[in-house]
């Protein structure tokens, strides 16, 4: 906690307040205290990620709390991603004659 006190980003109390506001805004409830604690931790991680992206972005984008702030990246991928289209679609990004001799 000593080192954490020097890090940028919200402090524990501010974090809890931000999380409460998130729960109110997006109507979120959790089934038990353990689940609440887990979602709070994920929320904190996403806020830190948003802050990092905000610093890195070369445009004008704002990153922060969204309706998906209590989801891990994996959960977000599973719920909203297009697993089938992830990465390369077979045979769709190769042009004819792109170097594979002898193959149609």
């Amino acid at each position, binding site marked *: 906690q000593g080192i954490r006190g020097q890090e940028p980003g919200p402090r524990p109390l501010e974090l809890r307040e931000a999380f409460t506001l998130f729960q109110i805004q*997006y109507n979120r409830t959790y089934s038990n205290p353990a689940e609440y604690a887990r979602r709070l931790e994920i929320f904190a991680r*996403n806020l830190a*990620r*948003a802050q990092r*992206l905000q610093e*890195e*972005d*070369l*445009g*004008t*984008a*704002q*990153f*922060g*709390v*969204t*309706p*998906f*702030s209590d*989801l891990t*990246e994996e959960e*977000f*991928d*599973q*719920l*909203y*991603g*297009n*697993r*089938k*289209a*992830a*990465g*390369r*679609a077979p045979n*769709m*990004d190769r042009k004819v004659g792109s170097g594979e001799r002898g193959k149609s």
Partner: protein
Amino acid sequence: VPSTCDWRKKPGIISSVRNQVTCGCCWAMAAVGNIEALWAIKYQKFVELSVQELLDCDRCANGCAGGFVWDAFLTVLNNSGLASEKDYPYQGKAEVHKCQAKRYKKVAWIQDFIMLPENEQSIARHLATEGPITVTINKELLQVYQNNVIQPAPGTCDPRQVDHVVLLVGFGKTKSVESRQAEADLSQSKPRPRRRSIPYWILKNSWGANWGEEGYFRLHRGSNACGITKYPWTALVDAPAKKRHAVSCPP
């Protein structure tokens, strides 16, 4: 190519923002948005089309587990069109063995579908002259996106790892702004930096109107941000000459 284009400004072209909820059907929502917009542009008639029909009748039977936008167009061709959203409403889950395409009247159809050249200038030209198109992007930054223009730093938002299909509805340029680097220079008392404007794409997402800029987001134009040029697909809707209207994209 005009300098700006925004199909949202033309009433009756772009449907309201949809919400997938917890179904991985961005591919179907983007395809339906594409056909709705082209139908409205060519026939001057707005129809809200059935996403559920694509989920239930997808030839690969993947429904909510993700899919390809070209499969959606193939399904529309195979079923000779699409029913309306009103007749065949969205359920948020696929019933892949319960395709009800034959039960409902078709209210829109397509002639074909194509992939555009992987080049942002060609994409802008097609968008401005023909109508909205579908694109597949890397959605990495969107989980925590709130508003304004995303211009990913090198090494973030890998353009090869695309995993989310959305509808491209316009493009423009921000007013002159200080770049983030320029702001940093200024705070360190360096000479006043030059101002710049940022060219962007306007994209319609399918995560509800509570997300992003009322359901939309903006992405930098001219740098293949998040792989936007990888799969630019569109249906082809062609009206008979006597029914054809000249509609241009509002600036």
